[in-house]
């Protein structure tokens, strides 16, 4: 870590950001002190073991699946040459744009008894009833793991790919010169260097898994989240639910802790060279087709199949779905997502850079605190936001009433500001994680050189760091944007009157098993997710050409 003079504003800013981001989590912590009754004797003797078991199995399963898919595909597309590599490089990101609950509904339609797959099998073999044959039940733990893995692996893919691309080819050359096979080079050189990115990707995917309610509810997999909502809504015990939320938070702290521990043992920076097209290995024969298949299957299952199904439904119900309201929903979604992504990136840059140039304990802890929002299920976070926000509004109102005799009403609650603020708090962890991972690969000698040249921290950031970490920043912005397009529970509670986004619109129908009627909306969420993906892939391609030209 480096110490520089004049880092005051960076520190103060970071602590302010962290406090705002931590506000809802603190509110939930406060609620946990006031349960309507002690839920634990009941939970421990009945459902808790099941909730814990399901949560752990689900997280382990999703964790393994996203690492397998994410690491293998990102390594292949960044270091090898095989058919359709350039297309797959960005195609592999696309499943990120498909909301987990949508893919769950679609695959259920496809694979259930009345779906085309089983109907076809019955036609071929002459079976009649469900009792006549065995077919894996999609609504199960296995189904939940597979489908969540399919839409969450891009977190790992995106961050791991950035790591692979940012690593110096010279290291790999050295490894190979010393007689290591390609696979061993991957295992002992590339993988350890890419670890921060991969670890953050897995941590993000797992936090998303932990928070998911829509998919696990639909598949009747009862996780801690299910328990939380049961205690809150059925047992009418918000305090008890807040206690469960805190337990889930501990899970997340463990995840973050493990990741930090892994990273601490190896400090590495690179200053020379990036991976470029020249350094890629050309695969031959069946190996190149194997590489193609490995990369194509996740895209096929996680993107093409759902999109084709959605497109089919959307065409059938086009006249019902396409109207002026629909265009408003789309604009709302785009605007909220864009504002959220911009704020997230701005704050994350601030926090990560402050951490880099000061390296003091306060700032490190603040950075961790700022990431807490991601660890709380959306609906709970929304309540955590409503409480302090309304308290502030009522405080301001009371002040104006008593001193000026006018009422200001609720200034923030129930506006798009409140909604954007919540989305920022919810997704700040994603942008901080991504941007920190990029920063960690920029050598500190750059900061030192900049200081020697007499540049202030802000100028150093603008002139030296930003160009180096640009693709990392864009990746972070992209994930936040796409995630925000899909965000549902917090949006439902916090949006202003008469304000629909595509996600809320889709949910209203999909939750009634009428996904067909809202297929157009779901398709738009996916398509809107494509825009940043295309921008990102263009930028990466451009920066690679630039590197090639300068070399």
């Amino acid at each position, binding site marked *: 870590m480096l110490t520089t003079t004049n880092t005051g504003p960076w520190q103060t800013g970071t602590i302010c950001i962290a406090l705002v981001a931590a506000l809802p989590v603190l509110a939930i912590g406060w609620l946990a002190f006031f349960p309507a009754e002690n839920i634990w004797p*009941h*939970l421990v003797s*009945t*459902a808790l073991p*099941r909730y814990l078991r399901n949560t752990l199995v689900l997280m382990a399963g999703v964790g393994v699946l996203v690492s397998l898919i994410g690491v293998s595909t990102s390594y292949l597309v960044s270091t090898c040459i095989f058919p359709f590599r350039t297309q797959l490089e960005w195609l592999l990101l696309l499943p990120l744009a498909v909301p987990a609950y949508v893919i769950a509904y679609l695959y259920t339609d496809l694979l259930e*008894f*009345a779906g085309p797959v089983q109907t076809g099998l019955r036609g071929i073999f002459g079976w009649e*009833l*469900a*009792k006549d044959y065995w077919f894996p039940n999609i*609504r199960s733990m296995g189904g939940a793991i597979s489908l969540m893995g399919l839409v969450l692996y891009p977190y790992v893919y995106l961050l791991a790919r950035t790591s692979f691309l940012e690593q110096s080819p010279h290291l790999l050359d050295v490894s190979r010169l010393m007689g290591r096979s390609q696979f061993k080079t991957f295992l002992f050189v590339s993988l350890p260097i890419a670890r921060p990115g991969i670890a953050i990707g897995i941590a993000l995917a797992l936090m998303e898994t932990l928070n998911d309610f829509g998919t696990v509810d*639909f598949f*009747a997999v009862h996780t801690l989240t*299910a328990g939380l*909502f*049961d205690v*809150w809504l*059925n*047992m*009418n*015990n*918000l305090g008890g639910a807040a206690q469960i939320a805190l337990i889930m938070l501990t899970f997340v702290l463990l995840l973050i802790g493990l990741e930090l521990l892994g990273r601490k043992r190896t400090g590495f920076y690179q200053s020379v060279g990036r991976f470029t097209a020249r350094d890629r290995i050309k695969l031959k024969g069946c190996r190149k087709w194997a590489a193609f298949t490995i990369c194509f299957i996740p895209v096929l299952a996680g993107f093409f199949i759902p999109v084709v199904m959605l497109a089919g439904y959307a065409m059938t119900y086009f006249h019902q779905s396409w109207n002026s309201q629909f265009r408003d929903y789309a604009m709302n979604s785009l605007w909220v997502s864009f*504002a959220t992504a911009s*704020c997230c990136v*701005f704050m994350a840059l601030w926090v990560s850079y402050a951490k880099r140039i000061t390296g003091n304990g306060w700032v490190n802890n603040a950075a961790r605190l700022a990431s807490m929002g991601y660890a709380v299920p959306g*609906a709970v976070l*929304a*309540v955590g936001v*409503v*409480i302090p926000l*309304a*308290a502030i*509004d*009522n405080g301001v*109102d009371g002040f104006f009433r008593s001193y000026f005799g006018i*009422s*200001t*009403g*609720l*200034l*923030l*609650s*129930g*506006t*798009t*500001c409140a909604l954007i603020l919540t989305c920022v708090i919810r997704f700040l962890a994603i942008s901080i994680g991504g941007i920190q991972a990029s920063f960690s690969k920029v050598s500190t000698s750059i900061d030192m050189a900049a200081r020697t040249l007499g540049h202030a921290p802000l100028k150093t950031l603008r002139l030296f760091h930003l160009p180096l970490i640009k693709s990392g920043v864009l990746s972070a912005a992209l994930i936040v944007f796409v995630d925000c397009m899909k965000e549902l*529970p917090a949006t*439902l*509670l916090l*949006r202003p*009157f*008469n*304000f629909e986004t595509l996600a*809320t619109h889709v949910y*209203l129908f999909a*939750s*009634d*098993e*009428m996904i*067909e009627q809202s297929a157009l909306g779901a398709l738009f969420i996916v398509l809107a997710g494509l825009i940043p993906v295309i921008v990102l892939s263009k930028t990466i391609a451009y920066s690679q050409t630039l590197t090639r030209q300068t070399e």
Partner: protein
Amino acid sequence: MNKTITAPFLLGMLFAAIPWSYAADEVNVYSYRKPQLIQPVFDEFTQSTGIRVNVVFAKKGMLEKLRSEGMNSPADVVFTVDIGRLSDLKNAELTQSVRNTVLDNNIPAYMRDPEGHWYGLTSRARIIVTSKDRISEGAVSSYEDLAEPRFKGLICTRSGKHAYMVALTAAMIAHHGIAEAQQWLAGLKSNLARKPEGNDRSQVKAIKQGVCDIALINHYYMYKMMTDPKQKPWADAVRVVFPNQNSRGTHMNISGMAMTKYAPNKDHALKLMEFLSGEGAQQMYAQVNGEYAVKQGIPLADSVKAWGHFKRDHINLIEVAGFRAEASRMADRVAYDD
């Protein structure tokens, strides 16, 4: 770059924050109920009165939102689909008493709070459906039957934790006491053909597919499925049974409304509530949704009418709501969702 973005953003925040609660001719609705079901009724209201209805819908956290906003809350009326939420709102002291003769005349006493804190709008029956092919007519006639060993492996329901199932269990507790109700729920659980999954419609679908033969659903889903080309074959595969016709009658739940404690547009809110309990709106509920209107003399939707008249359980809904937490814990104790 930072400044150029933040300045307009902050300005935008200020503009977005201009209070809308002062606007005239509006009424603000917080709804637990999906808007597509009530929007047409609101549109009618706006057309006949000129009062705009602003809606925000969410299933989770409405009560907490209302409580936090306190006396500055913009909400005038809250809509729910379950008696539980209505009594929660009243118990949290977030509603106000409305004494109004139009409402009292339109809505029978057992469908509203005695102190006027909430009013029922429609009622729905929790019915049993049985496979036309595999279960003979009359084989199942009560909720109690569902726990009998002869139906082992034949029944499908949604999660025992869902509000509709919780309300039924709570009603069983109210009628039979905790011990007997738990025996019943455990019996029902052991008769399940599969782990509870999906919503009410998917239980009917499961009967069509031969996964099970008997299911518990809310009656209007049958009506909705009959009007959907994809789902009609599911509905056609089952027979409707109104349980407990020879005893206390079929379990009913209500959807309803309540005026918030600090409603800023009280007069408009009252107009909306009166309108919704009136003939036009009640008719729309009945025709579009297939629900039972609370107002007397409203014709039923045709296919709902075809099921005939039935005896309803008139137990005090507030009492039923009081057993919800116990019912939810009971579902845990018998491991209903395992």
